[in-house]
């Protein structure tokens, strides 16, 4: 049951449709056809759907059985997040060709599938008025799901008229409907998350994000998916603008099993896991590495984070010190530990002597931030600073002579990096990046433990400013106690939700969220709840270069302080 599967995701009491109800109004359809207001105000952002969001949208609308076999356009990362970069991206011709191929494949599967009557919602004979009504209901219901808002009358009419033209050409209801569905899937309103602002009726001189935009902000942050039926309903009625209802919706989404999807998506972005798609290791140096290891490593870290941060509601800072994790047989081989479970995955606690210490000693971080044939303290140090501390380390000067640094045939990397640390042109950055990287040197380029390099023992003691520590566990404790670690997470959670780069106007609000995060014991769900229920999260940033008539028309008389300058 495609439609049933799609609606199961919606946590409401509405019963799902069955084959026998085909033709009767469906719950979503009711919302879609009732008082669908024209989109008002103006557009504040177009944020391209990520690949996982696209996949979730199709699964939520047509069921998880619809297969998507495609190569999506590369994402873009800004300030450490693809969610921010997505607001800068458009779609190139080659990218749109891929979307077109996917749209056609999805339409074929939906309209030719076994459950097509349920997916379509009605079963007309011929191409008469009943067929037209059926298509109109289909457009309204699926449009609401795909566009994350009701379609305007114009939009519905446009899709309907395209269907009529196709139906005349084919003389076939279903073939024409496929083309209509392709049209919807090719629309910018589906491929981009469109954020809109409108005048705030409570405070006529202010702007606010419209209800559907708020609903989508909630659901993408917490579920990495479009809003469900209840959220759309809260947007339609305007209830979502009430702080109490907003908070109860946030709580509902946090309590759902789908929150795990949201947490996985957030960390997949923050930890740059898309790089696993193209990760390669030299087979002669690392014979144990394979795509299976890469896939398992990724899963290990996500399981670990979901378990620790969501299921156990643990302290975020402990992800840098915990020796508890999950492994499978593939990873046991890399970590060189026994695997005794008969299950596919099993919890595992590394012994103290393993020197493992949380996230940074998992195969993900250690293999992603290394060369194909060796580790790299500098890369690890730079990336650790950027990802977990929000500290940007500048590019090296273009004319550095590396010859002395990288004679890899002898000694340990520490002796070679001393050149960086003493050369005045290099030292200011390498003093930040190298110590943390050197403390991880007992783990090679895929995360295997080692004590020697080129027959010399690896020294992992480091000095960071006033503090000194030793090895990965020392680094873990250092990060655990660093005030930058939680404040960086707060900043990333916010940026991930709003999809824009840091704005000083948000500084006080972020500080406030950081204090609440600390006071609550550094719990991620509470942080997300705090961010999502704060009005500042929904602050309207008026785009540059908006047409003057829109600036005036979208507001009641009296004007607006933000727009005043533009007029």
């Amino acid at each position, binding site marked *: 049951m495609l439609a049933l599967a799609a609606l199961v995701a919606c946590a409401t009491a509405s019963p799902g449709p069955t084959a026998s109800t085909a033709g009767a109004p469906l719950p979503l359809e009711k919302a879609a056809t009732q008082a669908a207001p024209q*989109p008002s105000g*103006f*557009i*504040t*952002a177009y944020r391209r759907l990520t690949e996982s969001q696209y996949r979730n949208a199709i699964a939520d609308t047509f069921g998880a059985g619809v297969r998507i076999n495609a*190569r999506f*356009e*590369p994402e*873009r990362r800004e300030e450490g997040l693809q969610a921010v970069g997505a607001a*800068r*991206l*458009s*779609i*190139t*011709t*080659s*990218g*749109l*060709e891929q979307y077109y191929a996917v749209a056609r494949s999805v339409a074929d599967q939906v309209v030719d599938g076994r459950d097509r009557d349920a997916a379509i919602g009605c079963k007309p004979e011929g191409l008469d008025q009943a067929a037209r009504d059926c298509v109109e209901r289909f457009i309204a219901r699926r449009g609401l799901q795909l566009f994350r808002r009701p379609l305007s009358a*114009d*939009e519905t009419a*446009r899709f309907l*008229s*395209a269907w009529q*033209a*196709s139906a005349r*050409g*084919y003389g076939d209801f279903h073939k024409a409907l496929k*083309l*209509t569905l*392709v*049209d919807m899937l*090719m*629309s*910018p309103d589906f*491929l981009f998350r469109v954020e809109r602002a409108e005048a705030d009726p409570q405070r006529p001189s202010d702007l606010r994000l419209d209800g559907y935009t708020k609903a989508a902000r909630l659901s993408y942050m917490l579920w990495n998916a479009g809003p469900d039926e209840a959220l759309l309903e809260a947007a339609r009625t305007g209830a979502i603008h009430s702080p109490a209802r907003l908070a109860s919706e946030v709580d509902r989404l946090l309590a759902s099993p789908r929150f795990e999807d949201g947490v996985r998506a957030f960390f997949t972005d923050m930890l740059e896991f898309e790089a696993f798609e*193209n990760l*390669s290791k*030299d087979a*002669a140096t690392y014979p144990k590495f394979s795509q299976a290891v890469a896939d398992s490593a990724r899963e290990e870290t996500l399981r670990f984070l979901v378990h620790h941060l969501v299921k156990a509601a643990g302290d975020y800072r402990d992800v840098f010190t915990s020796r508890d994790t999950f492994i499978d047989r593939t990873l046991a081989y890399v970590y060189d530990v026994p695997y005794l479970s008969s299950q596919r995955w099993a919890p595992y606690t590394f012994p103290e002597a393993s020197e493992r210490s949380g996230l940074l000693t998992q195969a993900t971080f250690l293999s992603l931030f290394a*060369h*194909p*044939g*060796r580790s790299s303290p500098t890369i690890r140090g730079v990336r650790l600073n950027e990802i977990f501390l929000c500290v940007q380390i500048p*590019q*090296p000067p*273009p*004319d*550095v*002579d*590396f*010859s002395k640094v*990288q004679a*890899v045939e002898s000694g340990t990397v520490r002796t070679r990096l001393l050149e960086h640390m003493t050369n005045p042109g290099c030292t200011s950055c390498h003093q930040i990046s190298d110590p943390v990287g050197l403390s991880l040197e007992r783990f090679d380029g895929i995360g295997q433990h080692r004590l020697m390099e080129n027959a010399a023992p690896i020294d992992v003691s480091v000095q960071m400013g006033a503090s000194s520590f030793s090895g990965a566990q020392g680094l873990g404790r250092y990060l655990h106690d660093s005030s930058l670690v939680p404040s960086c997470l707060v900043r990333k959670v916010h940026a991930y939700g709003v999809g824009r780069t840091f704005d000083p106007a948000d500084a006080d609000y972020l500080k406030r969220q950081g204090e609440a995060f600390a006071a609550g014991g550094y719990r991620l769900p509470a942080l997300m709840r705090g961010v999502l229920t704060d009005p500042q999260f929904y602050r309207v940033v*008026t*785009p*540059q*270069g*908006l047409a003057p008539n*829109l600036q005036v028309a979208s507001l009641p008389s009296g004007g607006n302080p933000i727009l005043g300058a533009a007029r």
Partner: protein
Amino acid sequence: MTHLFSRRSLMRGALGGATVCVGVPMLDLFLDGNGQALADGKPLPLRFGTYFWGLGLTDTPQGGTRWVPTKIGSGYEVTPELSSFADLRHKVSVFSGFRVIGDGKPNIVHWSGHAGILAGGAPASDRVMEGPSFDTKIADALGVTSRFKQLDMSASGGSTTYSTRNGSTYSTAESTPIALYTRLFGEGFQDPNDPNWAPNQEIMLRKSALSAVMEQRQALLAQVGAADRAKLDQYFTSLREVENQLAMQLERPDPCEACVIPEKPEETRPAMTVDQITASSRTMARLLAMGLACNQTRVFNFVHTPGASTAYIAGETKTYHSITHDEVPDARLGYQRKCSELASLIMESFGQFLHEMDAIKEGDRTLLDNSLIMAFSDTGFAKIHALENIPVLFAGSACGRHKAGQHIAGRGEPISRLALTAQQLAGAPVGEFGFGAMRTARPISEVMALGERG
């Protein structure tokens, strides 16, 4: 909406004189004689492409040069790193001594070089160009006369190219031979020499259905700010391209005498080692040449290896990129021996591509003669990320517009002059290119058969 069946003829009428080979009257090579056009009198189409490789070629202060010819002008001598196309060097011009001028901006390593070449000036930040890459202007000028307006491919496994219309969203490259094959010869390919060709009604319906999406354009553009307007514009341009591809499939393709559908390559993982990249660039070069001969595209961007190439030699711990920085120049030779070997390997791939292009006959010319390929790198001396003396090659005579086979010494001139020259040779209506210190209206007239221009 444009009428379904008239697009190609319209484009020909509007642009033919400016974009196709024999339409330009003052050409001195192809003016007379046979073989200047296909049997039915239709003009031969000009092709344009970029061929990019990272990490430059070898030219060191102590060891002298491994690529810059001594002789200036025509008849330059074979140099070690350019020896792979020694027999074709009368069809290739070599440009040395040109540079990207920083204009006070930092040298963003492995970005400022090619971003500066493609967009016409030094970029302010990583992975952002200050405007469109110039290949898109050529694609626009050549118009819709092939199935794809442009194709992008990377032999090194990554999916990004450096082709952009707005400076931030980049085309997606086909990153394996099988992906390139499927794009060129998979679904939607129409054999231009099929005698039983008939238009497919299904495609006509699919094309007209898409117009429902296109109709929203004006309404949406009116509701957005400047940045989103640019994004939407790019989206609708892409949508128009997809429509155009369908429109092209509704027209009987022009016969292409040289078009032979190649064999399907094997499925392979994206290439990462030097050996794999060498193998995949060879296969992709062959597929691309045939894709051009079969008129599937007229503009392409081929990335052999990206800027900071992570290619590595199997069994060695260093990447090519780190070798360029780490390798101590050989005391006796005065240059980095391994770097020169690796650079020569890349030039061998380029040479193979030129030979593939030159083996395909069109009239009494070759596909290479009917093309202009601008090959360039991101750095001069890679060890120090030099933006001076970035190697650039122009291959193919651009249907006679390019006076090939010369060595031009730039002596510090802005490299934007070469990009401007390429655009003019390819028929783009561009009189000036670049910005800041790189702005120029002076193409390299020595290599232009249209001597008076510029």
